[in-house]
């Protein structure tokens, strides 16, 4: 477990009156919890801690069993397991207070010998919670908790303990629901198991030691990557975690499987609603008419959506499905040159016949918005300053009220830019904790200038960007080939001859005509031949044909790394 106190329900300012208790002196609540765990005199169900006196009282009873009254300095911690009114799986850890069989016969106390002499007693099984005559499952019986009965004709019988249905509601206010078992692949598992199946402790998701990884809470805010609890953020077979062992990067966890299965919605499953993840209809042909490949085959396309691995995704036959949160149902096709395509599924409201489906190669008209962008339904999810958008149904890092259920017509899908509140343009909450929201990186359609298509011939460099910016200042970079300053004297003080002149020195190799791009203007020092020693010139001294100029080096260029002067296309094929 992540934290010993996670197993307890905390209530401030409460004292409970109990008979069976033990007093200790501890420095904090955690130490007190450790005392409770180690208590040998009775089953410790709760503890009280007083901050001023640092008094720790381990208790055999909890608030359900006895009277409570207020006490400002006290904090009551009750073991959640003793507050559960339902059983998880076969109920081996059921510690509730049901004390009669399913037929209504009162249970015999586990410590008594009549009317039945029990094999399972508190002495023999001190950790099985055999208190009073409560239903228990000390032997791991598949049919759940049971008890010896007070009917001499019936030695034992089973109790009617309800199964915790996915979401286990603990008693007590202020404690939210916690999923203690998993459905399907455990993608919705929110429980607190934090050890792997081989017993290794899990690494905290927000640390990079001992294993560096990308599954951070910051990057996956909706995946509930809390503490070091086992989770399934990547569609694995079941929940897992990175381990604290340097030699084992990650391992699966053993999470009990819920016996109740989530219902598949009836109406929605036969037609397209939302992204069609619950579509369970029998359409098996793509929008362009390709027949679908069977999910359980690997031909013609190899893939990872193997039905056995994903029992809840409905990967039957070759029907169109959306197992991975795509835009809508799709399938691999039997056409070896078309790996996959979307399917045309009738919309549940009958208004669309999948007409929104477009082949992935055709860009969607989603790079601009009209008006204030309230009708914008594109998939841009980057703000004007380049921040990534927070998902609308996520409350991390920003809590907000612009949720899909409150704005059902605003299409608040994923983390796409939207304008649910009539703002000036589409916007989103950002994933940057310091910036609540920003407008998105979108243009108004009427301002939009068409980008060249992928296969358009590229414009020439000269048309788009012109020539290299020459150095017009009186300094040189490198060998000064790009120097375009106005120094016109050599290093020894001689005046330069004009490049277009043939007097006093006649020359034919370096003239404005032969080197039109070399900047051979007037009599300025230049380096038309890339001389490693830098710019030079013919001199006006008849005795000296040419000489180097003495031009200072430019200071290092100031630049901002990673910032281009020309906007990239950012073309991506997904």
């Amino acid at each position, binding site marked *: 477990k992540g934290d010993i106190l996670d197993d307890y329900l905390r209530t401030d300012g409460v004292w409970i009156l109990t008979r069976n208790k033990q007093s200790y002196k501890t420095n904090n609540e955690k130490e007190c919890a450790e005392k409770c765990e180690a208590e040998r005199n009775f089953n410790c169900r709760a503890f009280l801690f007083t901050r001023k006196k640092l008094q720790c009282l381990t208790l055999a009873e909890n608030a359900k069993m006895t009277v409570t009254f207020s006490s400002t300095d006290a904090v009551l911690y009750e073991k959640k397991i003793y507050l559960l009114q339902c059983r998880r799986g076969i109920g081996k850890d059921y510690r509730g207070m049901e004390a009669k069989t399913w037929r209504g016969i009162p249970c015999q106390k586990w410590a008594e010998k009549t009317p039945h002499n029990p094999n399972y007693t508190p002495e023999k099984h001190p950790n099985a919670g055999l208190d009073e005559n409560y239903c228990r499952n000390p032997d791991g019986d598949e049919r759940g908790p049971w008890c010896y009965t007070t009917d001499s004709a019936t030695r034992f019988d089973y109790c009617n303990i309800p199964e915790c249905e996915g979401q286990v509601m603990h008693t007590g206010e202020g404690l939210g629901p916690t999923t203690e078992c998993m459905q399907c692949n455990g993608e919705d598992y929110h429980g607190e198991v934090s050890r792997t199946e081989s017993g290794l402790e899990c690494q905290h998701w927000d640390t*990079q030691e001992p294993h*560096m*990884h*990308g*599954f*951070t809470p*910051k*990057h*996956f805010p909706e995946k509930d990557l809390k503490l070091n609890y086992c989770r399934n953020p*990547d569609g694995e077979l079941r929940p897992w975690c990175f381990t604290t062992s340097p030699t084992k*990067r*990650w391992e699966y966890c053993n999470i009990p499987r819920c016996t109740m299965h989530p219902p598949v919605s009836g109406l929605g499953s036969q037609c397209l609603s939302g992204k069609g993840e619950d579509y369970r209809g029998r359409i098996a042909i793509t929008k362009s008419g390709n027949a679908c490949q069977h999910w359980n085959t690997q031909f013609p*396309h*190899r*893939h*990872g959506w193997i039905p056995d691995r994903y029992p809840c995704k409905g990967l039957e036959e070759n029907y169109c499905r959306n197992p991975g949160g795509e835009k809508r149902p799709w399938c691999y096709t039997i056409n070896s040159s078309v*790996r*996959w395509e979307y399917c045309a599924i009738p919309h549940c409201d009958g208004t669309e016949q999948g007409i929104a489906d477009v082949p992935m190669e055709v860009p969607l008209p989603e790079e601009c918005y009209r008006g204030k962008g309230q009708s914008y339904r594109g998939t841009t999810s*980057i703000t004007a*300053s*380049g*921040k990534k958008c927070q998902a609308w149904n996520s409350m991390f890092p920003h809590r907000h009220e612009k949720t899909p259920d409150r704005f059902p017509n605003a299409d608040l899908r994923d983390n796409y830019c939207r304008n649910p509140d009539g703002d000036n343009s589409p916007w989103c909450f950002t994933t940057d904790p310091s910036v609540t929201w920003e407008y998105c990186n979108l243009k108004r359609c009427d301002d939009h200038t068409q980008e060249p298509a*992928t*296969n*358009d011939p*590229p*414009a020439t*460099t*000269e048309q*788009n*960007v012109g*020539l*290299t*910016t020459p*150095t017009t200042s009186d300094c040189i*970079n*490198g*060998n000064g080939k*790009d120097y375009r300053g106005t120094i016109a004297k050599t290093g020894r003080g001689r005046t330069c001859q004009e490049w277009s002149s043939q007097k006093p020195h006649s020359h034919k190799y370096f003239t404005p005509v032969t080197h039109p*791009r070399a900047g051979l203007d007037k009599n300025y020092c230049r380096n038309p031949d890339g001389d490693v020693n830098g710019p030079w010139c013919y001199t006006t001294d008849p005795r000296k044909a040419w000489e180097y100029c003495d031009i200072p080096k430019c200071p*290092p*260029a100031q*630049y*901002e*790394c*990673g*910032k*281009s*002067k*020309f*906007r*990239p*296309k*950012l*073309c*991506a*094929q*997904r």
Partner: protein
Amino acid sequence: IVAGCISHPHSWPWQISLRTSFGMHFCGGTLIDPQWVLTAAHCLEKSSRPAAYKVYLGLHREGASEASVQKRDVEKLFKEPYRADIALLKLSSPAIINNHVIPVCLPKENSVLGGREECYVTGWGDTKGTGGDGYLKETGFPVIENKICNRPEFLNGRVKKHELCAGNIHGGTDSCQGDSGGPLVCLDQDKFVQHGVTSWGLGCAQPMKPGVYVRVSNYIPWIKSIMENH
């Protein structure tokens, strides 16, 4: 680059072309400082002599006919000492920083990418018939967490922790031969940061076979020390 598109000219001003002394392009690289280029070590296998290589900067066309092109000799080359596929080239003289030649940003030491970043690769490499040959192409796709990439149906444990992989699950677009040594950059706020050096792949753009890139953030101390000491 398979699929993707022809980039806007000079929109990736840190991209360099690594060439033979005769001027033939064979690998990419990235300008990380006016006088330093980051590339893949396997691009330097043919010769350990710096004189065997030339670096072209500021170009969009592989033909390098633009006036913006700067050419530099390689003064020194440094391969990562533990044989990771990453290397540094010191140019004979600093590149001139202008609108066409700008260094990329490097990531913080050991910074990690989440499994969702949209990143971009560029190069003049093989297009596998998808067009744009001879021009600097680009394509974008997400980084895939190593755990996923190492699944049996993907790269089956071949990806080491000093590497990262990126691509589309269904393939279709990828870096390819000739793009090696070039950058995988991701937008961080308003700057591009180089997180990967194009290294290897199983074919190009194959389904479930994303490309593999050297994880630059693991080599920041090495890069710094080489640049400071040379």
